[in-house]
Each structure stands twice: as structure tokens, then as C-alpha cells.
């Protein structure tokens, strides 16, 4: 083969980046990475776990820590990370805004408001703040979508969400000033975002919700690609714009509300993971969305393991939201710089 032919063949290979074979290879690799992160994270913690004893002696403390604490916590981290990163990717395409994070639609404000009120009023019945966070997120989402729908601009929902988040922050600050120091501590810790213990039943419910929501997003991913060009172009290429937009918004919001209910407000995952992967894989949501889910799961599981490694230094576990922000902030600035240099 001549040099020119080789060059053209390789150019041809790169011209279409989404092929089932390549997608399977990449997703398989990311899946293995996530599995590795899960395995590593269950071994890390304050209690010096011996895997052989944990697996060999069912009644031992090691076994109870592994099965009762470490594995549920790792699964929770994976669920939340997958949800935030995949919905972040979908919302960035849908709103055509690279800075859209999963919380833009007012979900964070609603969830925080719901949880804060639950903690402040001592409504610890049922599932504690989680249930109220979920309800708050759903209420905020419904409000924002209803307000955004009356306008034709795709940015209406985004702007309404930003305004609602600011409004919720004001109400939360007001509530905080009225709280006793104990309650205030609880609220602050919850707002910072943390992956703690959840009952298997809750995990199952959360997992089911994410499976459905992210599954729907993946099914819509080809239409999402077209929507990222603009509503009118998408319509001219055969996309039923209103229906697709509504389905994606509702699925992404449900996913984020579910994640927030389980872990509070964990920042940056939904922003960094899709951006990092987009640099490598391109903007095609058919690949980027599932890749973000796997990458987000691995990222948050590792970030949570880091909080446990930091225990000796702080004599407490910092919330995982702090770790993602401390890692994520600089990483994001570096990424943005790199992008500018490339462009």
C-alpha cells in the first residue's frame, strides 16, 4: 500500500467514530476500569479488611464490613457517579451548553430545599432527608419545565433552573440561621454531598430508577446528536423535537433527582467526566453517554475511596463532594485551557 493510500485508509477509519465494534471495545475497557475501581474501593477504609477472611468466614467482622458496609457503599457511589455523568452529557447536548451540569434544571435547589426542610423540621420518618430531597427535586423540575415550556427558546428551561437554584439557596440560608448548631451541622454535611450507607432496598430502588432513566437517554442518543445541532435542523432531519426534548429532560431530571436523594449535592462529576471523555471520543452521544456513565461511576467510587484514605489526616471522612470539587476544579480549568489551545 502506498503512503497516500495508508493515509486515506486511516482517515477513513477516523471519519466515522461510532461503530458497534469500536463502541463495544471502548465500553468494555471502561467497564473493566469501573470494576477495578469498585474492587479497589472495597479494600480501602479505616477497618483493615482481610479479603481472605471476609470471603472465608461468613460470620467474621471482615465479612460484615465487606458485605454490609463496603460493597453497598461502593455500589451507591457507582450509581450516583453514573447518573450524574450520563445526565450531564445528555443535558450538555440538549441545552447546547458545554457548561450545563446536571443541576442546571433547578434539581439541586429543589433537592437541597427539600432535604434542608426535612432536617430542620426533624422529619426523620421514612427515609430521612433522601425522600424529601427526591420530592423537592421532582417539584423543582416540574416547576422549571412548566415555566420553560411556555417559551420557545431552548434556554428558557436553563435560565429558569438557574433562577430557581438561586431562590432555593436564599431560602436555605434563611432556614440555616434559624437552626441549632447540631441540626446545622447535619444540613451542611448533607449539602456537601456524601456517599454513606443505604439499605439494600433503597439501593435496589435507586438502581432500578437509574437503569430506566439512563436506558431511555441512551435510546434517544441518536436523536440527541441531531438536537445538539439546533431544534430546527433536527426537525428538518426528521426528529420529533418536542417529544424528544421532553423525554430527555424528564429522564435526565429523574436520574439526577435519584442521585441527589442518595448522596446529596456532589459537584463536578457531571461536568468533568463528560468533558474529559468528549476530548477522547468526540461528541457522539451514542458512545459518549454510556461511556460517561461508566467513567462517572469509576470516578466517584475512587473519589469516595479517597475520602476514606484521608480519614487518618482529618480524623473524619470529608464529604465526597469536597474531594470531587478539589480534584475537579483544577482539572476543569486545565481542560478548558487545553481545549482553547486545540481550537
Amino acid at each position, binding site marked *: 500500500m502506498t503512503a497516500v493510500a495508508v493515509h486515506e485508509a486511516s482517515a477513513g477509519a477516523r471519519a466515522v467514530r461510532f461503530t458497534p465494534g469500536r463502541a463495544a471495545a471502548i465500553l468494555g475497557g471502561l467497564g473493566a476500569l469501573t470494576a477495578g475501581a469498585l474492587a479497589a474501593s472495597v479494600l480501602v477504609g479505616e477497618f483493615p479488611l482481610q479479603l481472605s477472611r471476609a470471603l472465608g468466614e461468613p460470620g467474621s467482622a471482615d465479612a460484615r464490613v465487606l458485605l454490609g458496609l463496603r460493597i453497598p457503599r461502593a455500589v451507591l457511589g457507582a450509581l450516583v457517579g453514573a447518573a450524574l455523568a450520563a445526565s450531564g452529557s445528555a443535558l450538555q447536548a440538549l441545552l447546547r451548553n*458545554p457548561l450545563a451540569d446536571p443541576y442546571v434544571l433547578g434539581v439541586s435547589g429543589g433537592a437541597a430545599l427539600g432535604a434542608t426542610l426535612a432536617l430542620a423540621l426533624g422529619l426523620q420518618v421514612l427515609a430521612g432527608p433522601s425522600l424529601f430531597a427526591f420530592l423537592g427535586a421532582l417539584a423543582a423540575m416540574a416547576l422549571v419545565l412548566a415555566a420553560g415550556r411556555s417559551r420557545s427558546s431552548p434556554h428558557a428551561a436553563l435560565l429558569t433552573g438557574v433562577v430557581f437554584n438561586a431562590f432555593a439557596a436564599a431560602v436555605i440560608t434563611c432556614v440555616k440561621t434559624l437552626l441549632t448548631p447540631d441540626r446545622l451541622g447535619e444540613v451542611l454535611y448533607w449539602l456537601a454531598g456524601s456517599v454513606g450507607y443505604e439499605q439494600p432496598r433503597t439501593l435496589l430502588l435507586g438502581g432500578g430508577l437509574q437503569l430506566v432513566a439512563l436506558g431511555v437517554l441512551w435510546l434517544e442518543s441518536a436523536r440527541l446528536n441531531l438536537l445538539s445541532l439546533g431544534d430546527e435542523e433536527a426537525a428538518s432531519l*426528521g426528529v*420529533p423535537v418536542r417529544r424528544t426534548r421532553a423525554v430527555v429532560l424528564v429522564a435526565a431530571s429523574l436520574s439526577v433527582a435519584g442521585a441527589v436523594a442518595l448522596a446529596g449535592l456532589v459537584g463536578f462529576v457531571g461536568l468533568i467526566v463528560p468533558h474529559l471523555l468528549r476530548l477522547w471520543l*468526540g461528541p457522539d452521544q451514542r458512545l459518549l453517554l454510556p461511556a460517561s456513565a461508566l467513567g462517572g461511576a469509576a470516578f466517584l467510587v475512587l473519589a469516595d475511596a479517597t475520602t476514606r484514605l484521608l480519614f487518618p489526616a482529618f480524623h473524619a471522612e470529608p464529604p465526597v463532594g469536597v474531594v470531587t470539587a478539589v480534584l475537579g476544579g483544577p482539572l476543569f480549568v486545565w481542560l478548558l485551557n487545553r481545549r482553547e489551545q486545540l481550537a
Partner: protein
Amino acid sequence: MILALETEGLSVGHGASPVLSGVSLRVAPGELWAVLGPNGSGKSTLLRTVLGLLPPLAGTVSLLGTELDGWRRPTLARRVAWVPQTFDADGGFTGLELVLMGRTPHQGGWGLPGPRDLAVARSALAELGIAHLAARVVSRLSGGERRLLLVARALAQEPELLLLDEPTAFLDLQHQAAVLERMRARSRDGLACIAVLHDPNLAAAFADQVLLLRDGRVLGQGPSSELLDADRLGRLYGVGLAEARTEDGHRLFAPRSAR
């Protein structure tokens, strides 16, 4: 014969007051139409209304024999294509990925291209002389190259009616002529083509029919050979025009210098 496009007393605009009214147009398969008029005369709005992206304020639109209301988006996209005036997307897709999006109306929901889709997309690129843009990332291309990719995407849709909103904007002279040459060749094969143009010389050279728009109404419509003269174009654009003829009979128009 089923008309590609038929409008009757059509009024178009954003909101309540029309920017353009009284458009009654009959476009047959195989015709290449040029829409000419000053900025803001409603040319783009007309195309978008015809495509159902904006609701008509009055009158009717019928595409390929069926009223606009009777079309579903996915079915319409298999038969009518549109080249928008601007491309402001993030543009991280490659040229071929963008052109393949024109195949989505013909594919299943997930848009996995088959061999025929790839062949059609590649031949659309080749037809416009831009096969080398296949693996290039769109955000790093020039405005003219993006324009050509959008035209290629519309061709990959294999439409029966093609609406082009300033297809020659940002293009160099060679590519302006090449795009319109391809449109004319396609129209000889039965494609109905409506192109918004800003250059009356291109309209005179390539279009069979012209639609002239000014001050919210139709100034004239019909065969370009009959309608395009310095006097009428001068009134259309509100500027004095000189007319000349080349040796082989082509008409040329240029603004009269104010000197």
C-alpha cells in the same frame, strides 16, 4: 403531475404581523427557483414556513401533494431537505458524521449507517468536491467548508424538494458556481430546488424561475429569462443597476457607481 410545492395566499412571519404576505407559488419537479430580495424581505422566513418550522400566518402550504399538516416529521425528512443559513453548533463531529446525519430519516432510530448510507454520504461529499473533509472536525473548518458540508448533508437526504437558504454565502467564486451547477444538474434529474440567493448574476446564470420579494410582498415571479432585467432588479434592491451581456448571451448586472 404532483407539484413539489404549492402555496396559496401564504403569509409568513414571527409573531402576529407578517413580514411577507400573498405568496402563491407553484414549484414543479425539475425546476430550479431562485428567491431574490433585500435583507429582511422574508426569504428565510418563507423557507422555514414552507418546511413547517414556523406556522403560516395565513394561506396554505402543500408539499409533494399533501398539506403541511398531513406530514409527520420523519416521513417529510425523507423527501424534503433544508440547508439552513447558519451553522452555530459546537461542531465536534467530523465532516462525514455530519453528512451521515442526512441519512437518519432513512435509517432506524439509532442511526447506524449501512453500506448504502455510507456510499450515499461519500458520493455527496465527492459530488461537491469535498471528499477530503470527511475525517476533518467541523469546528476547525472555514465557514465556506461548513456550508458545503450542509449542502452535502441535504443531498445525502436524497430529497425530492430541496430548500437552500443562501447556499453560496461564504463560498469562493469557484464553489458558488460549482454548488449551483450541481443543483441545476440535480434539477434536470427531477429534483425541485428553491435557493435563496443574494447575487442576481448567479440567479440569471443558473435559475429557471425567480421569485422577487420586496416590502412584504411579491414583486414578481416567473421565468428568470423574462423577469431579470436592470430595471426590475433596480426596483427590487432600490439601487441603480447597469446591465451588460457577454458574447454568449449571459446577462450581467452591476450597481451603477455613484461617482
